[in-house]
């Protein structure tokens, strides 16, 4: 139970930083997601009782906003922009190429080893460079399916080297 203790200690720190203010629910959830890469269910319940609001309310907010995830995401998150500018510049081709490369079937977003999660986002605001994708925090512009696959290869190479 040691690890659980550490887990809740982090949550307590985040709650304290936000002075147990229920209006700060969104920043609190953001900080927790930053820490764990998703929102674990037991933590949502813990937050609800700490802030003295119902678990349904916390769950409601957590599921309302696209940024929050209730399932663990991959180590590397690839966000393919499917905003208008990227869409008309054929971003769909990028998604197909990446899913194909990582062996993801329709409806699947994360690889089995949880190394990659592929998501689409509505707009990254780098429309001048459409089509665009974001790998972790790096924006890559003027993409083609070939270039996108190469980016994945680079990461796979780095991951392989670490092992």
């Amino acid at each position, binding site marked *: 139970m040691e690890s659980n203790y550490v887990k809740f200690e982090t949550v307590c720190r985040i709650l304290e930083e936000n002075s147990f203010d*229920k*209006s*700060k*629910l*969104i*920043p609190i*959830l*953001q900080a927790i997601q930053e820490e764990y890469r998703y929102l674990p269910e037991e933590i949502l319940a813990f937050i609800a009782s700490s802030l003295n609001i119902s678990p349904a*309310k916390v769950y*409601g*907010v957590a599921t*309302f*906003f*696209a*940024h*929050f995830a209730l399932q663990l995401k991959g180590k590397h998150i690839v966000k393919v922009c*499917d*905003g*208008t*500018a990227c*869409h*008309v*510049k054929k971003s769909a*081709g990028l998604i*197909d*190429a990446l899913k*194909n490369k990582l062996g993801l079937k329709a409806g699947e977003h994360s690889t089995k080893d949880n190394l990659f999660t592929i998501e689409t*986002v*509505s*707009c*990254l*605001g*780098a*429309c*001048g*460079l*459409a089509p*665009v994708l974001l790998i972790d*925090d*790096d*924006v*890559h*512009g*003027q993409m083609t*399916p070939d270039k996108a696959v190469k980016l994945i290869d680079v990461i796979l190479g780095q991951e392989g080297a670490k092992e």
Partner: protein
Amino acid sequence: MIDLDSIVQSVKKTGENITKRVIICAGTGCVANGSLKVFESLITTAKELGIKAYIELKEENKGTLLSKSGCQGFCQNGPLLNILPNGILYTKVTVGDVKEILEKSVKNNELIDRLCYSYNGTIYKGQDEIPFYKKQHRIVLKQCGVIDPENIKEYIAEGGYRAAKKACIEMKDKEICDMVLLSGLRGRGGGGFPTGRKWDLTRIQTASKKYIICNGDEGDPGAFMDRSVMEGNPHSVIEGLIIAAKATGADEGYIYVRTEYALAVERMKKAVKDAIDLGVLGNNIFGSSQSFTLQVMEGAGAFVCGEETALVASIEGKRGMPLPKPPFPAQSGLWKKPTTINNVETLATVPLIINYGADVFRSIGTKSSPGTKTFALTGHVLNTGLIEVPLGSTLRHIVFDISGGVTDEKDNVKESNFKAVQIGGPSGGCLTEAHLDLSLDFDSLKKVGAMVGSGGLVVMNKSNCMVNVAKFFMQFTQNESCGKCVLCREGTRQMLLMLNDITEGKADENIIPLLEKLAKAVQVGSLCGLGKTAANPVLSTLKYFRDEYYAHIKEIRCPAGECESLINYIITDKCIGCTVCTMKCPVKAINGVRGKKHAIDIEKCVKCSVCMNSCKFNAIIRG
């Protein structure tokens, strides 16, 4: 108390020692293309070459100043590098070019032709010459891309916070509201409501506490004007907020920024902190009785939060669902207190009005829509990027003069390729060739079924299917519908299914009147702007491209060749049998022997277009 004059003097004095200034664009677009690496390389290479270069303005620093700026707008040609006072603009700069730039241009004032923007054989030296810049009218964006957005003193040196000081000390709240109303400034977020009137509505409320919120939740796909302003000149937004706070009687404010805009969040947070440290924010600003505190709040990814009441709900820590109006936020907003909510660009425009007066502002633009508007110009045009033009400019001016024309799939300019422009995002509509000379202002656009919206202009060429565009926006609004109103929640879903059927060739003629009927019902039966405007892309494409809908329905054909269910890839007689496509095809759908014409197995083909793109002989077509 902060003394603006002494800051201006000290920045000027230290600036005298600076002989040259090299500005690297550090907007999201250029950073994606590696501009920060170029910046690092400038610092190290200058040291190696013995060039006196600094990254900070200080009295003892004499020589060249290396600085970063916000978005310079010419995104497609990034990373951008400006050299002042020479007025040189280099495009697509890489780390490999740094040494040459320092040796030739910084040391010896030589121009490196190969790094200049060139088109059709003409080489353009800098912003003064490049048509993309020359044909704009940049006032809100003037400092974006010049000053260092992370240095509050530079903003002050360029005349910053003078309008805020004037508003706090010399002007009464009503005076400010009247002046902004007289200037004719209308909300830049889409609605076009007169800003002065909005402020006055909050001002007349008698409440112990009032709030002001800057709406930087720019969720409209294909638009990045607010991002650029927040990244490039964050202090102009803060200054606008201080003026708005004084005008409405608010003492607390929020800047709500989309979480997807990581750099804008970071810059805005730093700007707020610097403003607090310098005493521009806090108690008794500029020695007046006005106090104002400000904090930055990150959104969590919901388009509907751009709607005022939904935005307020999400600041309160609730699901971002809109509420019926009235009561308007001006009467009862955040924590049920009178609240003003303004768009980023609107706020950044306000200091200009206070500084130069309502008349000067009115002299730009049209009578009912004065001033300038920034547009994010994207899609199939030669030069994409961020532009600013007077309201009332024409599409022809923007698409052909500023941006250099419409491009085809291979990025070659071809005037005849123009098909439509989508303006105003998922709430807006499309404009066609017939609208190329229409005045782009709030009222004219409304008349033709479109809207200025936040200012996204997506140019489409003949390869874009308009039914598909309508479907794209419907998919977006259906995803983003918060679910509160039945007609919006279920209506967008049903409209999307209908559009799907059309693009897959499964619909009959009765679908068009049904689609129109439902579209109008969703318009009437939804509470907020998202639902009320959700059907606009459908109605406007139906209005201007009805034939294209019928081609899908009656002829089971997509005239633009985009709807995948209705097209097939065909290998023509141009095929020489090189086998490249057989190897590239991810599903092994192409059979062929070397030297003989290949064939595609339609059953296996997933229509990924890899074969067409890899064919060097243009032998594969869509049909």
